[in-house]
Structure formats: C-alpha cells, structure tokens
C-alpha cells in the first residue's frame, strides 16, 4: 500500500526514479514522466532505451559516483527538456544510495526554477545596464575632454593679439577695454586648464606618484617655483604674496606625491586666493613640517566662503562667491589629487574676514 502511494505521488509530481541494478542496467521505478515519454517518442518509439542527452551524461556520472561509494548524494545541474508542444521542463537529478539501493531521481522543479530564473535574470540584466551606463559616461567624458581641449587652442591667439594691442599706442578708453579683454581671456584660459586638470586626475586615478624620498617632490622647491610664477600676476593686481616659511627653510621637505601636480594644487589655491582679494590685500602661504606629515596653509583677506556652501565646497561645479568665481573645479581637483596621495584639504574662515585653506601632505620617509 505504502509503495503504491509513493508510486502515485511520484507520478503526480512528474518525478522519475531509476535504479542501477547489479547487472549495470538502469530500471525505471516510477511512472514515466511526460517529458520522458515525449522524448522517447521522438527518439524512436516507446521503449527506446535512449535517455535524453543530459540525463545520459548524468547517469554515467552517477555510475562512477556509486563505484566510489560516496555517502553524500550527487546532484546535477538544472536542465530543461523541451517537449514537442514547446513546453519547457526544468529538471534536476540526484544520485544517492538508499540502504544499498543505487537510485537516481529526477525532480521536476517547476516554480522554484521560475523564481531562480527571475532573480538571476534581474541580477544579470542590472549588471549589463550598469556596465553600459558606465561605458556611456566614459565616452561622454572623453568627448567633453576633446571639446574643452579644442576650445583652448584659439585662446592662445587671442591672448597673444591682445597683449600686443595692450603694448601699442592708444587712448585711455581703448587701453582699458583691451585690458578687460585680456583679463577675460586669461580667466578663460585658467578655467579651461582647470577643467582639463580634473579630467586628467579623474581619468587616471591610478596615475603613479612617489613615496620614496629619492623620487618624491620637494615641497620647498614646489612652493618656491609656484611663488615665482605667480609673483608678477599678484603684483599686477597689487596683492601681496608672502611666505615666511619659505624664507626660513633650509632643507628640502620630501612629500608623497608628484611635483607637477603638487604645483598645480598650489597654483589652484593661489589663483583662488587672488581672485577673492582686493588691491592692497595680502595672501600668505606657510608650511610646517612634523615627523610624518606637513601642513600647508594659504590664507587670504577676501570675503570668505559663505556658510551655505562650505559643506559642498570641494565638490565638482560648486562656485565660491556669487560673481567672482571661475569654474568650481579647482578645489575639486585639489581634493581629488591630495586624497590620492593620502593627504587632505580643509577650509576654515579667518577673523575678522578671509579664508584659510589647510593642506595636509604625508612626508616621504625612507623605509
């Protein structure tokens, strides 16, 4: 009776049970499920002893499994049989030894399969969509980079011509106009260069930098070279630029980073300070070396950064100051670059007015 119930149940479930006899032949111990009947029908009439190909392979594996005498059941991959009516039958086979009887049973998975499939489908589709979005973004960045780069070329000509005009004979009104045009063109140059800097730092985040003191940049040298380059620009605007630490320093201070980019960071911060200074103001660049790190500050007497944007100051495309801001990319570049080297940058207001940007760099130490 119990045996009949089991038999009926297996039939209802469309499960298949096979037993491996001592003679090495597989005998069916259940009803033949629909997917098997249909398969055999196709493969040469009822009673054909050919198993569907996946099952045939699994039966060979099962045979070996039983020979090895492993207690744990062997489970197959899921697979699908498709009956001629187009219906898919998701199946999974297991081989196990039940009290000396060597059985293989094939389950019809039905809903469980549909669930698994839905989950995997969603996961894979999401991965694909993410990948293609990512690629799209990269492509756009490269395109933008090319555009910005192209915008830069005519500027050299404009600045050059305006400089010649500025040097020529002309009345006061014209001279003023030329000066304004020249100033605007230079500002645009700075803006474009900052955009390009950001591209460079973002597209090559893994760009190499030095930790070894023999190759690491000398902060003192970088400060000296940037101050030299910016001296005349500050002078033209009648803004003071001083560094007591530079005057006092005797030995190099090696820091983790790259000289060219360290100088770009300093230049960005100086440009920023200059932009927010009025004639007669003073900008100070100071640094102090500790055992492991160096702290560098650049301070101005400008209006300071409004509270409302302090939290987002170092993000892309945030501009400080309502009308005087150039692109908001300069500070983003600084943060991005410094953090790649394990450094940091912060902002604090000065009393009674002004800003201090505080840069932390790691010293490049031997060993």
């Amino acid at each position, binding site marked *: 009776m119990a045996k009949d119930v089991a038999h009926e149940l297996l039939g209802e479930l469309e499960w298949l049970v096979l037993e491996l006899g001592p003679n090495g032949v597989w005998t069916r111990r259940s009803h033949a499920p629909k997917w098997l009947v249909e398969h055999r029908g196709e493969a040469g009439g009822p009673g054909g002893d050919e198993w569907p190909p*996946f099952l045939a392979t699994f039966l060979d594996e099962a045979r070996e499994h039983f020979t090895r005498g492993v207690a744990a059941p062997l489970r197959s*991959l*899921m697979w699908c049989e498709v009956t001629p009516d187009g219906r898919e039958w998701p199946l999974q086979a297991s081989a196990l030894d039940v009290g000396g009887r060597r059985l293989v049973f094939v389950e019809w998975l039905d809903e469980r399969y549909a669930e698994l499939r839905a989950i995997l*489908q969603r996961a894979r*589709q999401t991965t694909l969509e993410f990948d293609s979005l990512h690629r799209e973004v990269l492509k756009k960045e490269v395109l933008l980079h090319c555009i910005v780069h192209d915008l830069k070329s005519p500027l050299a000509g404009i600045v050059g011509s305006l400089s010649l005009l500025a040097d020529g004979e002309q009345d006061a009104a014209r001279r003023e106009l030329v000066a304004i045009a020249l100033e605007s063109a230079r500002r645009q140059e700075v803006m474009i260069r900052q955009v390009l800097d950001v591209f460079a730092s973002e597209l090559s985040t893994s760009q190499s930098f030095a930790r070894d003191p023999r190759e690491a940049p000398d902060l003192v040298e970088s400060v000296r070279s940037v101050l030299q380059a910016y001296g005349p620009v500050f002078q033209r605007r009648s803004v003071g630029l001083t560094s007591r630490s530079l005057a006092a320093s005797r030995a190099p201070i090696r820091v983790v980073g790259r000289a060219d980019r360290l100088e770009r960071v300093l230049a960005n911060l100086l440009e920023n300070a200059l932009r927010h200074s009025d004639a007669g103001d003073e900008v100070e660049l100071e640094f102090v070396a500790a055992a492991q790190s160096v702290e560098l500050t650049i301070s101005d007497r400008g209006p300071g950064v409004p509270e409302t944007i302090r939290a987002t100051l170092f993000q892309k495309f945030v501009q400080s100051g309502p009308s005087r801001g150039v692109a908001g990319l300069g500070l983003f570049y600084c943060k991005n670059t410094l953090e790649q080297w394990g450094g940091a940058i912060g902002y604090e207001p000065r009393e009674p007015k002004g800003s201090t940007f505080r840069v932390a760099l790691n010293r490049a130490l031997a060993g």
Partner: protein
Amino acid sequence: MTPTRVKVCMLGSFAVGKTSLVQRYVKSLFSERYQTTIGVQIDKKELVIDGRPLTIMLWDLYGEDEFQKLSASFLRGAHGAFFVADGTRAQSVDHALELAERFAPDLGDGPRILLVNKHDLAAQWEVRDETLARLRAKGWLVLCTSAKDGENVERAFELLARAMLERESD
C-alpha cells in the same frame, strides 16, 4: 549510414549570445529579448558534411558569472567547444580565454573556436583587431559572428563540424 553523434559545448560569460547563436543556427530565429539560461539547454542539429551524416548535440550552458560557476563535469564527452565572447564587452573575451584555459584538460585535443559575437553592433564594438590578430597568431581560430544577422554562424558550426569529423577519422 548511421550519423556520427557529437557533443559540442557553448561556453562564455553571461549574455554574450550563446543561446542566440544556437537558436540562429538550429531554428533560424533571433530575439532581442534576453532570457538567461539556467543550467543547460540541449539542442540538436543534423547535417551532412561531404556525404557524411552528423548529429550535433549542442550543449548551451549558462553563462558564468559571480552567481554561478561552470564546472568541468559539463564537458564530459565533449568533442568540441565554442568559446563565445561579446565584441561590445572587451572583458568577455578575457573571460572566454580564461575558461578555455581552465577547461583545456577536460576538452583534450577536441577542436575549439572563439566566437566574438554581436558583430552587427559596430558602433559599440570594443575588441581591437590587434587583439584578434594576436589570438590568431597563437593558434586560435577566431570568427566574428552575429546571431542577429547570421554573419558567420553557419560557417562557424561547419568549421567545427569538419574539424571534429577529421579528428574522428584519424
């Protein structure tokens, strides 16, 4: 003459077009809709090569990803294999080559062909000609295919079939 029966596996990353290539070849169908394969789906194709009948059992395996790894047992008794990549995802070529290396012992000296699929998507194509030239120089048979417009699909299966028959008769 009873047909020679061979087992061929389709291996590669997910969504590279293994199922689509089989469907194109066996049923001349193509669908834009992506329906991921769970486990394996087996299809059959009968053909005649130089007067010799051949039955190819095509094992379309699921694409390997972080959720499901392929295991060597699926290659049991395989006579040949297609390693399939998606030309619009350069990484899938590396993955296909990695699988080829991992399963080389299981495939023995059975012939294998690298299919770089989705060749119809020229604008998104990522795989460089130099990469393919380098693989060919290393001995790979490489074909750029499209399950969508059928490019090189028949040819790929025929080449593999010939190679398998040659090997059988040796």
